[in-house]
């Protein structure tokens, strides 16, 4: 009973934290962009503008619900929900921390579900978020939306391949798909790189790490690969026709997907919740270490967005199929050779 209660509590806390983090990320985006462009950014609502996401949310709820003429009504409503739900569900297997406590001999671990197929789950369920973009773009009955949806589709399929191959390289090294075990392996003392560096996969798989991080940008439709939105050509891309909370749901989905992808990068390549040189770190220190690493990657998402120009679409496709895929394949081949020897 207590174990069930603990599980429910974990679900509530993790989902609540994820949605709040998505809200905070929207503020962070605006503040970081302002900082990079020597502006101040929103600072009027609450101290330093921290209540801005809340004010935005209230505004979105009070806006008019609008379905454009000729749109496919059900799909139009379903699309943003799909987009957000997929991103929220994929966080279920991320190990945020180690052992919290033990209840009646049952260890309570800081992750909603500890699946044996964890890494696959994130890719499979997270990949479904694309349906929100495609269906939203198609159901809007607007050419800009449709183009946005089409671009997102092609982009997603192209980069998912390289991303999965990068994950596969880590999986081949760790011999498991379970994310918690992947973290524990990176934490163990005999996995130290050159005997002194922490045993993080980034040191064993530098190429896979770089490819993976770039692929996460493409997978989440973020700058410099945000062709699904592409304001200068497509007005707003797939969400041109969306208003009120439906529009906001797309954004919650996008930021949640960014957070999940950051969590995946940290878990696969940067030792997850482990603390270097301190294997028996207490739960809270581990959690803090995890959140610190994730925050860095979230900042990287914003930093890149406000520093780099957008690619051209053909450049994106060339990069995906002619550079990333061969590199990822070579990497998996070398990893396979190294593991089998």
């Amino acid at each position: 009973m207590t174990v069930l209660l603990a599980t429910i509590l974990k679900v509530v806390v993790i989902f609540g934290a994820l949605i709040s983090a998505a809200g905070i990320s929207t503020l962070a985006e605006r503040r970081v962009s302002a900082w990079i462009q020597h502006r101040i950014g929103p600072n009027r609502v609450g101290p330093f503008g921290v209540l801005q996401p809340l004010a935005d949310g209230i505004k979105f709820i009070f806006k008019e619900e609008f379905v454009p003429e000729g749109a496919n009504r059900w799909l139009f409503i379903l699309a943003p929900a799909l987009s957000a739900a997929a991103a929220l569900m994929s966080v279920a297997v991320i190990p945020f921390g180690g052992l919290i406590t033990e209840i009646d001999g049952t260890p309570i671990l800081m992750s909603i579900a500890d699946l044996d197929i964890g890494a696959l789950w994130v890719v499979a369920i997270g990949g479904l978020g694309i349906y929100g973009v495609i269906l939203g773009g198609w159901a809007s009955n607007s050419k800009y939306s449709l183009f946005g949806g089409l671009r997102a589709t092609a982009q997603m399929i192209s980069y998912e391949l390289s991303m999965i191959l990068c994950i596969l390289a880590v999986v081949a090294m760790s011999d498991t798909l379970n994310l918690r075990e992947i973290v524990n392996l990176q934490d163990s003392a005999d996995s130290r790189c050159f005997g002194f560096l922490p045993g993080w996969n980034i040191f064993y798989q530098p190429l896979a790490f770089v490819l993976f991080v770039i692929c996460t940008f493409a997978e989440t439709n973020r700058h410099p690969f945000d062709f699904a939105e592409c304001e200068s050509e497509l007005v707003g891309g797939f969400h041109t026709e969306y208003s009120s909370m439906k529009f906001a749901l797309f954004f919650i989905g996008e930021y949640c997907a960014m957070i999940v992808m950051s969590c995946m990068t940290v878990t696969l390549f940067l030792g997850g919740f482990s603390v270097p040189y301190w294997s028996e770190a207490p739960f809270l220190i581990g959690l803090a270490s995890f959140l610190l690493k994730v925050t860095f990657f979230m900042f990287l998402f914003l930093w890149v967005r406000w520093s780099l120009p957008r690619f051209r679409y053909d450049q994106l496709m060339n990069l995906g199929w002619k550079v990333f895929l061969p590199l990822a394949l070579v990497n998996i081949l070398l990893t396979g050779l190294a593991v089998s020897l």
Partner: protein
Amino acid sequence: MANLLFYLMGLGAVIGSLLVVTSKNPITSVLSLLGTFFCLATIYLLAGFQFLAAAQILVYGGAIMVLFLFVVMLLNLGHPEEGSGLEFMNKRRMPFAFAASAMLIVLTFAGVLGQGSAPGAVELAHMATIGDLAGLMFGSFLLPFEAASILLMGAAVAVIVLAKRERTQAVER
């Protein structure tokens, strides 16, 4: 509870696959097929095959169906007045469709009634982890597995050849 879920998902899969062939809108067809895949993935989960369920969602749900949607949207097939999917079945093609369906039905019943007569069925029944699956797939059943992949490859090439010929004829007309 698990039984109820199994029957619900089975019903969903049957209804979904019926909708795929009968619905007039290609997008509805694609989405029904997606729903069917999800029902099947849930059934795999109920049977304890986590990896199979995840692979089903990842490969079919996440990649193949996205590609289908992409093609349907790119060719702008989304207009309901294009006609029902059943109209495509003219008299010439009907016997082949029936023959293929009959073969599938026979194979399905042979699998159900034969209970384990198919190679590998017994071992799979009490196999849960990915390691076991990999052992079977790349160990004892490596040859059938590779043969199946070559068969699929051949089918893909054949489809491309067939589709290409139809295209040039359409242009000549």
